[in-house]
């Protein structure tokens, strides 16, 4: 039972990180219909900011807000420079644009910073662990769970009580009608990107605090997980993204924890098999978006 509880805490921490990542994709998708595969590069940018702050001797307390700021600014710039010109293009055009942005950024990181991964200095406290009710919980796990809860509460408040948030929800439901009601498209879309940048930044801090290094290709794996989580939860639905992220985290941790040793090698195919199974029964995801009426063929 102890082990089960312990693994559940692990799953909560990982699932929370996935939820933040999937939310970042979903916020933009719900409004623009774009799956931003350059989302991972926003994380890489935040990671490099943490690295440079460490080199400059800045405290982690200052480095984290700077990293978040950098990824928000980068997200807004990404929208302004790369996605605004193709905003009225087809879904495929925007998708390919996002791949291009991701690749260009990766090559820039490789050429301007380093091909090798760079160490990020982290406060020693993050490697510690605390004992709670007989369980050993790493401080970075605890931080992940707290950060996820804080971000989810913030997002809920922002979407329900903030003008931009309400406008974003309206735009997600019907962009054309929302614009007729006087909502500015540029503001809403830039807001969505800024929000996704913030989510990427928080996820990056959690991600980097585990791996202690950044490299130019770091963003690929998280964006892939976020994509799976977003599809699992229901593409374009914010609640779905959170549910999908947590479910993916639970699937991964429980398989890794409780699959018999001789089956461990097949952990990932089994995990993805479960995802497919869920989608067979709920083809639009766990909590589908009300407006994206994908049909079962």
């Amino acid at each position, binding site marked *: 039972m*102890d*082990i089960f509880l*312990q*693994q559940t805490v*692990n799953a909560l*921490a*990982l699932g929370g990180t996935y939820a933040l990542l999937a939310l970042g994709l979903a916020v933009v998708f719900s409004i623009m219909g774009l799956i931003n595969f350059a989302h991972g590069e926003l994380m890489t940018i935040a990671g490099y900011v943490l690295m440079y702050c460490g080199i400059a001797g800045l405290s982690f307390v200052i480095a984290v807000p700077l990293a978040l700021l950098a990824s928000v600014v980068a997200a807004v710039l990404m929208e302004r420079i790369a996605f605004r010109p193709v905003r009225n293009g087809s879904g495929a055009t925007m998708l390919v644009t996002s791949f291009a942005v991701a690749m260009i950024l*990766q*090559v820039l990181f*490789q050429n301007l910073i380093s*091909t*090798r*991964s*760079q*160490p*990020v*200095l*982290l406060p*020693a406290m993050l*490697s*510690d*662990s605390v004992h709670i009710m007989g369980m*050993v919980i*790493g*401080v*970075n*796990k605890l931080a992940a769970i707290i950060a996820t809860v804080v971000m989810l509460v913030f997002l809920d408040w922002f979407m329900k009580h903030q003008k931009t948030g309400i406008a974003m929800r309206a735009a997600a439901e019907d962009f054309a009608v929302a614009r007729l009601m006087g909502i500015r498209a540029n503001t809403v879309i830039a807001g969505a990107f800024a929000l996704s940048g913030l989510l990427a930044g928080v996820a990056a801090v959690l*991600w980097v605090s*585990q*791996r*202690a*290094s950044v*490299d*130019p*290709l*770091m963003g*690929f*794996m*998280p964006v892939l*997980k976020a994509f799976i989580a977003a599809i699992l939860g229901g593409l374009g639905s914010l609640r779905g993204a959170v549910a999908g992220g947590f479910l993916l985290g639970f699937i*991964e*941790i*429980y398989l*890794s*924890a409780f699959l018999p*040793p001789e089956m*461990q*090698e097949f*952990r*990932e195919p089994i995990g993805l098999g479960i995802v497919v199974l869920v989608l067979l029964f709920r083809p639009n995801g766990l909590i589908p978006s009300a407006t994206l009426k994908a049909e079962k063929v």
Partner: protein
Amino acid sequence: MKKLLTLTAVGAMLAAPTFADTLRLGAATAQTGGLAPYDAPVMEGIHIAIDEINAAGGIGGTTKIELIEKDVRSDAAQTSIAVQELVDTGVSALILPCDADPSLAAIGIVSSAEIPAISTCASSPTLPMIGGDYMFANFPGDNVQATVSAAWAQEQGHDTAYIIYSPDSQYTTMPLYFAEVFEKMGGKVLGQDTHSIGQQDFSAIATRIAALPEQPDVIMTSSYEPDFPSMLKALRSAGVTSQMIGSDGIDSPTTFSLGDAGEGVVFTTAGYAEEGSPLEAFNKKYMDATGSESQTVFNAVGYDLIKVIEAAVLAADGSTDPKALRDAIANLENVQGATSAITYKGTDGMPVRQVSLIRVKDAGREFLGSPSPDAALIPAPRMQ
């Protein structure tokens, strides 16, 4: 223009069987993508060696080295395309990427063109076995590294081990060699776990190990960044205090900047810059050439590779004929490189080189020695 180039190249090749004034080397390495962290520093070392040799008038004072470089983007298919292009320009020897898998993608072209090829830093002993007569490695083999670290663990009185490996690449299965040697020497392997390369979260594995009825004395892995730091931190924060043993993949600045978690980690690598050693001399050259400290032994490994080619040209009496070079490389003995003396004679292409044991201490390197492994203990290469 391209035709003209090819014609001149073919012409040059036909016209110059012995005592050529240039040796054309083709490098198809990964300057971008997942292998770039290894291949990029190797190429820096290669450039330093070539500049040094050419500044002294070339190999043996006559043969200058001309390097043609292509980026294979860490991609197997791109490696074989780049190698074909290099073969078409008439190179005398080829330099292939750091991992066995992309290097093997080029093997058909290498074998049929009969041009010797050296992988920058692949360490899987299966590479020359599968690759055939023209494929050479330039790094201590995985099975040799594992033997050195297993013997060290036993010497320290560690009797039980746990291994964590990834079946995703040949290199990351090194712990299987470790387990084989460790058991052969009388140790007990308590269990094993697998992960995938790039896996972010090791908490499930760490929790399982922490809950074992008997804690292992050592945990061995050949995972590298970003997996290794995540794994180590997860284990330590789950309360696992076993001795961690790694391999050359973690010979990187990150390993030395992990704070308390990183302290005491032991790993095998290709060399250590003792005072007065050739590696220390190389590191000075690196500093002069680039203006910064060498951060990894892979710089020196690149230098080694060119030293091997230089020795082969000298042994072949100045010939740049690919076949003569292959035979010369296969018979090289005790070539002094930057990291170690290198011997190919009597091997199938996996060189005999020194393996150094390093321990992380006070965020720096503590040299534990370069023991010669007992040949009887070295496991046979294992085909995947």
